[in-house]
């Protein structure tokens, strides 16, 4: 059994310490398989100790493997906003690979009530220029937001997509 497979099993261990150690060990790996990337994102919905480790791994992960996109798109439908936040972030790091990614992130933007998720969705769309006209129209609504970050990301996206 590969190390990554073992770690995936450890992530589902009933003991909290084992799960925490699994995420930490994943953070020490040089590269992650797409499945494991998804597992770490899912760990953000876990107990605080696991979540903190997962956050740190994802923050330092850099560019995820391109093959992780389908898994990350699925995670955009998760009920936990932290899972969505990180799935959006990683998709944003990947940039525009397919229209499906752009569409999925627009859906997150429209459906999420969490400012941090909306901000990340706009940030991610900004990494996918040029966006479709339908996306632009939706983003225009956010350019007048009272939230300075949402307003800034939306305005920047619109400015960049018009040039």
């Amino acid at each position, binding site marked *: 059994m590969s190390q990554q497979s073992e770690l995936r099993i450890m992530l589902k261990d009933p003991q909290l310490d084992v799960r*925490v150690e699994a995420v*930490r060990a994943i*953070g*020490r790996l040089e590269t992650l398989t797409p499945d494991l990337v998804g597992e770490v994102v899912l760990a*953000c919905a876990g107990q*605080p*100790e696991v*979540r*903190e*480790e997962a*956050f*740190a791994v994802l*923050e*330092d992960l*850099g560019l995820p493997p391109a093959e992780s996109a389908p898994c990350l798109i699925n995670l955009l439908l998760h009920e936990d*906003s*932290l899972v969505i*936040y990180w799935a959006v*972030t990683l998709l*944003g*790091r990947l940039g525009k690979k397919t229209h499906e990614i752009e569409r999925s992130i627009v859906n997150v933007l429209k459906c999420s009530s969490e400012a*941090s998720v909306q*901000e990340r969705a706009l*940030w991610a769309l900004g990494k996918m220029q040029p966006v479709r006209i339908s996306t632009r129209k939706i983003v225009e609504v956010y350019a007048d937001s009272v*939230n*300075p*970050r949402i307003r*800034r990301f939306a305005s920047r996206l619109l400015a960049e997509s018009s040039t």
Partner: protein
Amino acid sequence: MARRRKKKSQIGFLRWGFLALVLGGGIGVYLNPELPFIGPLVARLNVPEVVSPQALQTEGEKVVESLSAVISNGESDDSTGANATRGLVIPQTSTDRKPADRIRIATFNIQIFGQSKIGKPDVVEILAQIVRRYDLVAIQEIRTKKDTLLPTFINKVNEAGGNYDFLIGPRIGRTISTEQYAYIYDASRIEYDPSSIGTMSDPNDLLHREPYVVRFRAKTPNPEDGFTFWLVNIHTDPDEVPEEIDALADAFQAMQTARADEDDVILLGDLNADEKKFGRLGRIPGMSWVVMGKVMTNTRKNHAYDNILFERGATSEYLGNWGVLDMETIYGLSREQTLKVSDHLPVWADFDVRESR
């Protein structure tokens, strides 16, 4: 460095501390050291979660006593350093004590410093030894919901007979996952201005984790001679580095004008950017940084994310010595063991203990 506008306050740090102690919160407004800042960032005062009583110690004799304790702790200082002018990694000279004429300031991202890490005695021992090498350490990435983490850690640091203390900032972040900054300092060598502690305000929400700022002073026999300086502790968001680094340029310049009597501003931390990505921050006239060239600051030695920046013209107290502590070499650890301590390495720089006039 002495500037026309830089007249050190006649009310010294110790007197501020005394007044605050005697008069309590009512004097707070009076003691507020001109903290509204220019630019998009302004500072707000925040009460530290743990107030250090040692910061109020006043007697020169105590300083001498405590210094003796530090000198006798037998800590080696044989770190892997780097030549500031050439950026080459070279061995530093071994010393067994802290020199009285300089202070060593460090920055260290202790990757997810929380309950899990504090529960590993071997890791904590290494961390304690690292802290003892320095007079003042800016810490990033404290992640815990408990307030006992740093007191526990400081007890461990002081087991060797030191007199370290700490200041810790509020929990900050965009989601429920938050981080804290902290400063750990050798109270026998360093003191802080109790009225200067703050987290910078960020009305335009440019920064993920706003800098934690504190004004410190190196202890000298005559307090008026001690080098005073702001430390600006930062951990940027890796996904928004260009924007955040530019915001730090505003933050740095705001701190330079935060007090009429202080122009020494040292910005340090995990910038998630090497010198090539310093943008507007790097273009501030006279801006210098210690880590440059091919020197790396992470455990895997492929990124230079951590640094110490200051304006060389103003902060002429900088002595030109700096280094990156190679934990693997110094403590004989494997890469795997080192990564259990942190994925970042401490970066340090030496400054004159006396204020340049």
